[in-house]
């Protein structure tokens, strides 16, 4: 078990060092999210009454599509010089490799989301820093990262990865997107645990199933 988690830690640490050096994943997530928020702000010209209706949707449209960009980057770094083959040639368990990559994706997406929240607050005149929103964001992003990492690995071997990933990924994460939007809406309206808990529970169940299923499915995906 110690070896398993030290493998997970080594992969995560390696991805952090690579990201710190080239800054490609977080930059792509941030820039796309920011542009989405700005375009939607100008396109909708939101009034206070409209904002209360559309803000959760706008936030998750930005997070979902920018997250896909980040997930595409997650395995691009492994594809370069066929480094993924070097990784798969080691006796490290496929589950550990998956978890290491998934935690890296989760971290990059969360960092980008935390940076974007104040920008969202300014553009849409909202006060989004609510504890329940943080819980919803974490649970939804965990679901995105767990499913997205597997599909990113799957799409790595396809010619049109940029198209294949969202085509495969979005239909699977529809329950998470719905729960995240409703949970965010309730959090914006000041809802407490009682109101939001069933959506968080839905995300928790989805996340658990996704992490376990994807970790064991990674071995099949990793093979040509």
């Amino acid at each position, binding site marked *: 078990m110690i070896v398993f988690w030290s493998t997970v830690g080594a992969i995560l640490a390696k991805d952090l060092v*690579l990201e710190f*050096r080239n800054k490609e994943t977080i930059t792509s997530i941030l820039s796309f999210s920011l542009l989405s928020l700005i375009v939607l702000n100008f396109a909708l010209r939101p009034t206070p009454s409209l904002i209360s209706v559309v803000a959760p949707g706008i936030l998750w449209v930005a997070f979902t599509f920018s997250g896909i960009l980040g997930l595409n980057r997650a395995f691009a770094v492994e594809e370069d*010089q066929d*480094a993924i083959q070097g990784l798969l*040639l*080691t*006796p490290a368990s496929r589950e550990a490799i998956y978890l290491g990559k998934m935690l890296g994706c989760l971290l990059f997406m969360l960092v980008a989301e935390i940076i974007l929240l104040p920008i969202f607050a300014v553009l849409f005149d909202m006060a989004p820093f609510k504890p329940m929103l943080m819980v919803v964001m974490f649970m939804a992003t965990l679901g995105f990262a767990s499913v997205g990492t597997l599909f990113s690995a799957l799409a790595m071997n396809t010619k049109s990865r940029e198209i294949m990933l969202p085509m495969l990924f979005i239909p699977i994460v529809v329950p998470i997107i719905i729960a995240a939007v409703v949970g965010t809406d309730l959090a914006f309206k000041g809802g407490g645990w009682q109101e939001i808990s069933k959506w968080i529970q839905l995300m928790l169940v989805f996340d658990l199933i996704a992490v376990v299923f994807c970790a064991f499915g990674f071995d099949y995906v990793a093979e040509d």
Partner: protein
Amino acid sequence: MYVTRDISDTMTAVTAEQKPAVTAVQLTKRYGSRLVLNKLSLTVEWGEFLTVFGLNGSGKTTLIRILATLVKPTSGDLDVATFSAKGNPSNIRREVGVVTHQPLLYRDLTTRENLRFHGKMFAMNNIDLRIERVGDMLGIKSNMQIKVGTLSHGMQKRVAIARAIMHDPSILLLDEPETGLDRDGISMLKKIVAGERGIRTVIMTTHNLDYGLELATRATILSEGSIAYDKQMSAICKDEFREVYSRFTGATN
């Protein structure tokens, strides 16, 4: 304490196990309707240096990928380093080092960081000691702090070999390692690979007849996914081999 593998270790393993380094029986690999390996059977004894020749598409790379447990055969049985590929392939991965035409390294990590990461993936002890040892052996010590992406192709190949032997595998799989190297690079590679002869069991694929025959103790020609020719070097006349190679592959070299 890290102990360097030598031929006596290999011979002890032979005596203890009485099993060849590689036993492949009726290996078949299909990608969809395309048959890549066709009931290929192969036995490689401990300490042998087997060179596998063949044209593009003859199944050389697929054979190496199956031996390295990167790809599962469609049918057939495979034992590598006495472990069955159908059991836990991690055991085989511990005993196998692989060099391909790609370096399998992270461009934005330094040589030392790449090797250290590799050491962690193998849960190795004495990682720094092993890095020093392979660094000395392959002449890459002065490049330890340099990002791999900025190294020359030849130097990247040295780092790739360092990565492949750092965990002290008993079997070395080399898939066209000379690809992309100039004459000097191939000469350097030949010296390094020749140094592994007798220390490890080596299976190398190549198109380069001169280079492949010089290193081998046994030569095989793969054609359309099957072994078309297989002889010990002691029984091979090089000129005759060239003729046989041309006959099976239609190629001149």
